């Protein structure tokens, strides 16, 4: 069992968790799944730090991810979603999420699409990364799909975090991570973003009395404002 195989396995797990996230409707389980995904990502980073010698940067990254994405963010989101809605926090699903099979078919098509897209890159890089980049790309696209198909503000935050994970994964496999300074900057931005999400959950809750973003349609064209 070499390191490449571990990474391959982890990337498959990442994709799987994304799929699960996509078709889930309960906010709580979505948050858990996200935590699992982040944990896999953290593991993958750790594995990469062992493959390439003296890469303490990656080691730190793994720790950072673990602290931020596996512990803090899921806790924070769970705290918020419980605090803000007394009802059972499930995402009132759209028609697509109501048909998980169709949705997963679309998602699979997206995976195929990203595989096809990265096909041209295969010649220029080693085999593993080009396959993994397809996975990273599909995680990103699926993250967007997640946002599009879910209605709760919390799911949108999660979707953004999934995209973020996908990007981090891409950075990891393509370039063995970004330079540390940038990594820190990105992490800081993510932190600020999640705090802003928190602030907004409060505002949304007070202004529209729910976290359902579909009721946010006051601002549009063609009607009296």
């Amino acid at each position, binding site marked *: 069992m070499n390191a490449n195989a571990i990474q391959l396995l982890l990337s498959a797990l990442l994709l799987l968790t994304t799929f699960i996230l996509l078709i889930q409707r309960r906010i709580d389980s979505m948050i858990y799944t996200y935590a699992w995904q982040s944990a896999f990502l953290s593991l993958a980073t750790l594995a990469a730090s062992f493959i390439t010698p003296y890469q303490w940067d990656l080691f730190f990254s793994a720790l950072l991810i673990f602290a931020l994405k596996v512990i803090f963010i899921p806790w924070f989101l769970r705290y918020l979603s419980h605090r803000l809605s007394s009802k059972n926090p499930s995402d009132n699903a759209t028609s697509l999420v109501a048909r998980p099979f169709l949705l997963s078919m679309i998602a699979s098509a997206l995976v195929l699409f990203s595989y096809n*897209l990265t096909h041209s890159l295969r010649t220029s890089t080693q085999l593993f990364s080009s396959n993994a980049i397809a996975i990273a790309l599909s995680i990103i696209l699926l993250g967007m799909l997640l*946002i599009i198909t879910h209605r709760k503000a919390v799911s949108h935050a999660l979707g953004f975090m999934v*995209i973020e994970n996908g990007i981090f994964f891409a950075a990891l496999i393509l370039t063995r991570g970004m330079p540390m300074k940038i990594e820190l900057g990105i992490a800081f*931005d993510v932190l600020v*973003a999640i705090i802003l999400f928190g*602030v*907004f959950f409060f505002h949304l809750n007070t202004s*529209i009395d729910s976290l359902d973003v579909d009721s946010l349609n006051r*601002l549009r064209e*063609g009607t009296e404002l």
Partner: protein
Amino acid sequence: MIFYAILLTPLLGIILFSFIRKARWAVSINLFISTVNFIAMILLLMRWQTTPSFFILHAHEQLYLDALGLIGWTLTTFIGMTTALFSYGYMLQNLQERRITLKRLQLYHLFYQSFIFSLLIAFSANNIGLLWVAIEGATLATVLLVSLYRTPEAIEAAWKYFIICIVGIALALFGTILIYFAAQTSLDPSHAILWNALALHAKTLNPSIMILAFVFLFVGYGTKAGLVPFHFWLPDAYSESPGPVAALLSGLLLNVALYALLRFQILTNLSLQNGLANHLMIVFGLLSFVFASLTLHHQQNIKRMFSYSSIEHVGIMTFAFGLGNAVAILSGLFYLIIHALIKSAIFTTVGNVMHLTHTQKIEKIRGLLKLNPWVGWLLIVALFAIAGAPPFGLFIGEVGVFLATLQTDPYLAIILGLGFLVVFAALLRYMQSMALGNPDKTAYPTPPIAKINLVPAGLHLLIVLILGLYIPSFFMQILKQAASLFIGQ
């Protein structure tokens, strides 16, 4: 030294505003810091004039200032200053009317300076990762500014702005990583992320990755710039944010996004040599232009109307940069500067108008010229300036874009001409209904407007007027230097 002074003044502001609570102090200090910042910028410009250095590298090559960045810096510090001047009176007024609390005023100033800071970083970032971080930072800083009033509409607008932009900008991060990856084979990892190194070795970058990267960067930064069809956040955010914030968004945020797009356009063009980036920019530029110009006819809210005008102008600029010939690039750069100046003037004027009439509805704003001749004339002049009428600077830009279009693709000039006409019709219609005629006599008592609130818009328009008649050679030299980035020496 001056370089760091400019960078650090807003940082100092951020620190200061964490402590200051008194309102009058805060607004004055905000103005003071912005003014100092701009004065430092003038010093830098003077040094630039004496030693025409093409670019300056700082901090282990992480920061880098060339002519393009210099334009961005000048605009940022200048508009930062004038908007601070405007927000001086505006925020105090808001405080009096209890639209905002003291705490939110503190927040406003904090984010104001962080926004300026991130912009300065973005314009001077050599590290493309840092560029991304700075733009993301600018986005995050403005999100809470947009929702400053905490009305349901403002929150909705800010939320949409937030989600769409961070998703977009996440895509840009992916694009950035792809570029970093594309440079792995030819550059060592510490240099593969530096823009100047990338530009130098652009031909060795992997083309197929570059294509993918540019698409992601284009969608990402294009979202930020407000290109159709990624623009949907823009009218909401502009219309619901307070006057000075709208001025900042339209005058600066839009430019920084376009700036980032231009950086990667240059890189992609150097690397691919097939003009793919240019084609994308032409198509989406024209799309934005046409789409926004048509939508412009269907507006009820004055700020939304002007936000569509911003989209339309971004479209023209993107189109011009996409054309890629010398005239187009020069006019595009000129257009960018003038547009930033006029648009922020417009949003400050709109702030005054709203103060005068207590409404954003176009149909309720009537007879401004009789209500308050100063505001009325400012609005008229600003509207004609933004519509590209001479003798204002945008006219030169417009003529330049046309000439450039005729040079390369004469047929596109028809779309451009029709679009200009449609835009002009809309702007003229709105101008007439708002500024001319008799005001509604019964509607409201009109409060007086402090002359100081008119100064920023007046100053901007004066500069635009002067630039429309005479372009100083120093200014032109900087433009040419910036343009030479696009077309080589």
